[in-house]
């Protein structure tokens, strides 16, 4: 999806007078009549909804650029040139950049999914914390809005500008500052790529405590700023635990050196925790101190086929008990995900027959014979007790990586199949998957989806009708985290209106989180109240205002807009 420069951003928010919200993904600000049609079509099939939303009225307004933010000029670029190298600045031609620079800017303005697109005129690529400090101090003084950007692999539009915010890309800050061979504590710049850090750690016999599909591009600073989860969460826990310290530049240019390397420290408020998951709304993370666990030298991976979601849970209970400390991943995905990932990557299924659900188990340990024996006993017992129907155990590293690609390749494969609506939710394990068939039914009732492949096989983005091709689920069972993905022939408000706010209300009714590991960004900012009480949101706003009184840091995102600033 692309927008002409003059268009309003592709985001719709609720007005202050209504309590509910609409699309985060439609192609342009919908006209009032389009919104009315969508409401009418929803009205008939929302009767079965257990939530109050059916009675709510929908009213959409687009976000508007905050006029208090200064528009960038050539003078500002000239100022940046006084302390940044020429190749650290990319600008549009009207403010002194070249045509090539303007082209390169496009990549920084567009998010990975192609769902969000800003129109910033400048990217700054500082090489040091001091440069970041000078940038922020100037922007704060001049009231220029800023969006920090890491590897640009976010899924909720948090890392790209909404309007013309200055993009501060941390990609040129990618040095490892220190590594301690005894403690395994790594100190590095925030622009280091996760996979590069993992390779570095591997060279010393350690591994990064987190791993995720985007590891080849995502930055550690972005991981910290979004409190990323991923597939090692079950083993090594949250970044709130493994990050030992941060170096942060505040909006006024102050450098907060909180880059401690102490696993234990009980002196005062733990300020760094505020910046973990703050999505660049309080300042820019420039340095990270993180504890890396010893790298396991024995890794086993198995893919299992099971007949129901209930069996997935049963297997999880048993596996966690039997494998205990060597279990390092327990992932699951449904049969539709498997079909698409195999087809897209031209892979052979490890199992002969199709199964309604697939499970991937990984063990990591220090002694191969010990792990092998434990795993073999556990898997045999799962099979004998008919908890699982079939399974395959990787015999070499090639099979290990192929099996992993069947799980990790799902987001990319779905993205290639069609525009994907992504919901990343945390809910109690017992009902985790229920939302997938429920959403499929709702989309079917709304006339947008049919399980019959014939109805969508030929649907292209130019099809006059919006056609949902698949409603799929996969995720991290161990963390109670489901990725609900809806793939359509294009992003369309009609689909969003069926999905939202229903998904969020459903999650709230189960006391879940509307964002388990993807953050809030632009997409979920208006929906924060589904997961957090008014008291909590109010305190978040106070914290934001304390650090960033001018509101220049990553504006329009993270917090519900109606509460962020009285100046809007």
């Amino acid at each position, binding site marked *: 999806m692309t927008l002409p420069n003059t268009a309003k951003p592709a985001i719709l928010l609720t007005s202050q007078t209504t309590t509910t919200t609409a699309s985060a993904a439609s192609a342009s600000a919908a006209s009032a009549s389009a919104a009315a049609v969508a409401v009418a079509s929803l009205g008939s099939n929302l009767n079965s909804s257990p939530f109050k939303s059916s009675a709510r009225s929908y009213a959409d307004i687009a976000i508007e650029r905050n006029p208090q933010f200064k528009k960038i000029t050539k003078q500002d670029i000239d100022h940046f040139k006084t302390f940044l190298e020429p190749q650290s600045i990319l600008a549009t031609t009207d403010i002194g950049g070249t045509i090539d620079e303007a082209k390169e800017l496009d990549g920084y303005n567009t998010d990975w999914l192609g769902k969000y697109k800003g129109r910033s005129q400048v990217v700054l690529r500082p090489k040091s914390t001091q440069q970041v400090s000078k940038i922020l101090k100037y922007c704060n003084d001049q009231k220029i809005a800023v969006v920090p950007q890491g590897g640009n692999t976010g899924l909720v539009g948090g890392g790209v500008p909404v309007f013309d915010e200055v993009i501060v890309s941390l990609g040129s800050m990618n040095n490892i500052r220190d590594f301690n061979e005894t403690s395994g504590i790594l100190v590095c710049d925030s622009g280091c790529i996760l996979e590069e850090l993992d390779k570095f750690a591997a060279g010393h016999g350690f591994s990064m405590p987190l791993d995720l599909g985007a590891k080849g591009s995502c930055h550690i600073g972005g991981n910290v700023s979004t409190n990323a989860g991923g597939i090692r969460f079950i083993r090594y826990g949250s970044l709130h635990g493994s990050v030992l310290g941060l170096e942060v530049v505040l909006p006024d240019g102050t450098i907060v050196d909180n880059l401690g390397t102490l696993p234990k420290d009980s002196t005062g408020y733990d300020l760094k925790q505020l910046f973990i998951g703050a999505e660049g709304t309080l300042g820019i993370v420039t340095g990270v101190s993180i504890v890396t666990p010893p790298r396991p030298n024995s890794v086993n991976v198995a893919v299992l086929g099971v007949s129901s979601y209930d069996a997935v849970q049963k297997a999880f209970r048993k596996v966690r008990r039997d494998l205990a400390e060597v279990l390092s991943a327990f992932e699951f995905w449904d049969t539709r995900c498997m079909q698409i990932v195999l087809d897209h990557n031209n892979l*052979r299924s*490890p199992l002969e027959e199709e199964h309604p659900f697939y499970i991937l188990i990984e063990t990591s340990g220090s002694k191969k014979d010990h792990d092998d024996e434990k795993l073999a006993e556990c898997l*045999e017992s799962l099979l004998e007790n008919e908890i699982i129907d079939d*399974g395959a155990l*990787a*015999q*070499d*590293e*090639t099979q290990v990586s192929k099996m992993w690609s069947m799980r990790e390749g799902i987001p990319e494969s779905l993205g290639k199949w069609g525009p994907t609506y992504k919901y990343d939710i945390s809910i109690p394990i017992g009902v985790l998957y229920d939302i997938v068939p429920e959403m499929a039914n709702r989309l079917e009732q709304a006339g947008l989806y049919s399980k019959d492949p014939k109805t969508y096989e030929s649907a292209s983005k130019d099809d006059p009708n919006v056609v949902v091709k698949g409603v799929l689920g996969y995720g991290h069972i161990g963390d109670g985290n489901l990725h609900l993905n809806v793939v359509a022939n294009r992003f369309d408000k009609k689909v969003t209106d069926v999905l939202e706010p229903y998904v969020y209300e459903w999650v709230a009714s189960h006391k879940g989180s509307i964002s388990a590991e993807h953050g809030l960004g632009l997409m979920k900012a208006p929906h924060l109240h589904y997961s957090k009480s008014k008291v909590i949101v109010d305190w978040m706003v106070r914290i934001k205002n304390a650090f960033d009184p001018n509101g220049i840091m990553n504006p329009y995102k993270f917090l519900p807009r109606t509460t962020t600033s009285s100046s809007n």
Partner: protein
Amino acid sequence: MSGLRILVGVKRVVDFAAKVRVNSQQTGVETANVKHSMNPFDEIAVEEAIRLREKLGKDKVTEIIALTCGPKKSQETLRTALAMGADKGVHVEVADGQILEPLAVAKLFSKIVEKEKPDLILLGKQAIDDDSNQTGQMLAGLLSWPQATFASKLDIQDKLLTVVREVDGGLETIATKLPAVVTADLRLNEPRYASLPNIMKAKKKKIETLTPKDLNVDVTQRLETLKVTEPPKRKGGIVVGSVDELIDKLRNEAGVL
């Protein structure tokens, strides 16, 4: 015609995806605490044997025997072959660290052939650790059997074997009578995963263990490794500021102009 008996060779090697490091004495690569797996080309050979049985029927392929020569841990590799579908395993065990050269392996194989009387021998075209690409050819020589190396397609009708080989100019199709030795190339097939039920069954399958002495084969090394070194590390590139600087570097540093 009685059923076919297929002998498949499998070798335990450092895993294809493992990072290989030269040991400190520069006599070979580090093997302690490094992941080992079945040689990928042997995996293809095992897969082909199983596919032949699936294609021709159980009565036509009466037995698939997996054979490995190596240290005690090579049994794991044999178990993988059994889990994929081989019927029984034969392990010619040597001491840890004993290097088996292609000729020694070919001789050991030829002795097993005398015992097991297979009609077809399937091997990987080469092992990824020493890349010798000799065992299959030497074995055919010792047995005076026809050989079809680098097979990318294989078919058997009655006792006539047809093999498509990948050669420099394209594809070459050859036909020969059984018994014969075939070595598998990469594109022959994509090996299956070992399923849990088959892994469990494989534990109950028989493995016969022998020593080179039992077979009356001398496996003493005939080749001497002088030194093993790593390839030189690749240096990082640099960004030049101007065309003049580029020409200067090409001329004076790289010496290519």
